[in-house]
């Protein structure tokens, strides 16, 4: 399959899962990985460093209008929404919070779905609010692949169960299954 990006959303309880995924991807992962994870808005540094410790691919917090490159992960910066603009660029925004969140997973997923249509893989992980549910629906409606972490495996189930209520996910996967899926693309 010819995917152009994978986007991952998570909140409480997702850090370990994201770390495990990033440490299992091949160094030459063929597409960009977009990470929208809820985080403290006033803590600007430390998160990328923590995620990078075990990651196989480089992770950065993009600047506005940065060009996305394959084999790299892009983490939504604190207190900004992260959009995917056409022409494979990031666009940041300080618009109002959505679902009490900035960055909002819904907004990242919706804009990525608009940019990549059926060539996007969206993954919702453990989390404590419903942010991301609508975004994953949009990924699915645009023909992309919608994956939800198995709620039984999640530290906090709210985010994944909300996503499953709104969308018929293509796959409900454990962390290991998500990794195997990504390793094959």
């Amino acid at each position, binding site marked *: 399959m010819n995917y152009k990006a994978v986007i991952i959303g998570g909140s409480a309880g997702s850090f370990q899962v994201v770390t495990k995924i990033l440490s299992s991807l091949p160094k030459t992962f063929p597409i960009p990985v977009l990470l929208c994870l809820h985080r403290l808005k006033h803590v600007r540094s430390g998160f990328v460093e923590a995620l990078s410790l075990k990651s196989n691919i480089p992770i950065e917090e993009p600047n506005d209008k940065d060009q996305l490159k394959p084999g790299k992960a892009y983490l939504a910066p604190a*207190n900004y929404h992260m959009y995917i603009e056409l022409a494979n660029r990031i666009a940041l925004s300080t618009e109002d919070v959505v679902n009490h969140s900035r960055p909002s997973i819904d907004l990242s997923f919706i804009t990525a779905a608009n940019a990549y249509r059926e060539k996007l893989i969206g993954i919702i992980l453990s989390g404590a609010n419903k942010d991301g549910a609508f975004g994953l629906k949009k990924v699915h409606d645009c023909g992309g692949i919608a994956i939800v972490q198995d709620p039984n495996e999640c530290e906090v189930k709210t985010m994944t169960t909300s996503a499953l209520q709104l969308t018929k996910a293509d796959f409900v996967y454990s962390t290991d299954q998500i990794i195997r899926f990504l390793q094959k693309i």
Partner: protein
Amino acid sequence: MTELGIVDIREIIRAIKSFYDYDFGNFALTSFKQRLERLMIRNNLSNADSLIKKLRDEPDFFDIFLYEISVPSTEMFRDPSLWRWLREDLLPSSIEKSIGKYKIWLPNCVSGGELFSLMILLSELGLTDKVSVAASAFSNRSIEIIREGHYDLKKIEVSTENYIRANGSAAFTDYYKLDRYYAFRDTSLIRNIEFNKLNIHLDNAPANIKLILFRNNLIYFNPTLQDRILTVLNNSLSASGILIIGIKEKISGFASGKDFDIVNEAESVYKKRIIG
């Protein structure tokens, strides 16, 4: 409401250009689309045609349009580390050295968050009388809201935390009043501010400015317009004048970037390069 497609957005941009000679063609597409959709929901407009018709038939609505397309600052004293640096480093030393009034310009005030943060800081430093502050806005509505001191209740909690982190020297509650469902700022802070309306390309920008605060505005433009606006800002600055943009906005890579030197990378502070 149906989602706006690219064709709808192009139509809206074309219509505004023909009615009002404002060109939104170089605004960043994704955020512009979101602002348009938000504005349409807030004004009960169901599609691009109804928005275009309202813009054509109601000139007063264009001011509302300009107000709602603009994105207000998220909170006061956003990025407290920048405000600490302004308080402890840049402002006291630069204003002390300034011959005549130290001119500060905020090119795009939307709700006044950034302006009131600055005026509180200057007041606490006892420097209000040594500066002249020009506040521009894209809409008359913004100027009205700021002058009347309207303050979004939702932003008080985070702004208070920021103020404390920024080493504010008073109590943040000194600067606003609660009136049942509303909050009002202490407008005595802005009594000497010169307000003016500018268009979205900042034509007729002021000159000889020592400090420009323009944080998290460039993100709403595409790289073409970002480059052009950076040139406008550079032209407004006096020799060695300071430009502060958002921490995730960078000027390297732009033709205009060579006209600036970096002063504080973490806080995106730049200085006009002296030619020669």
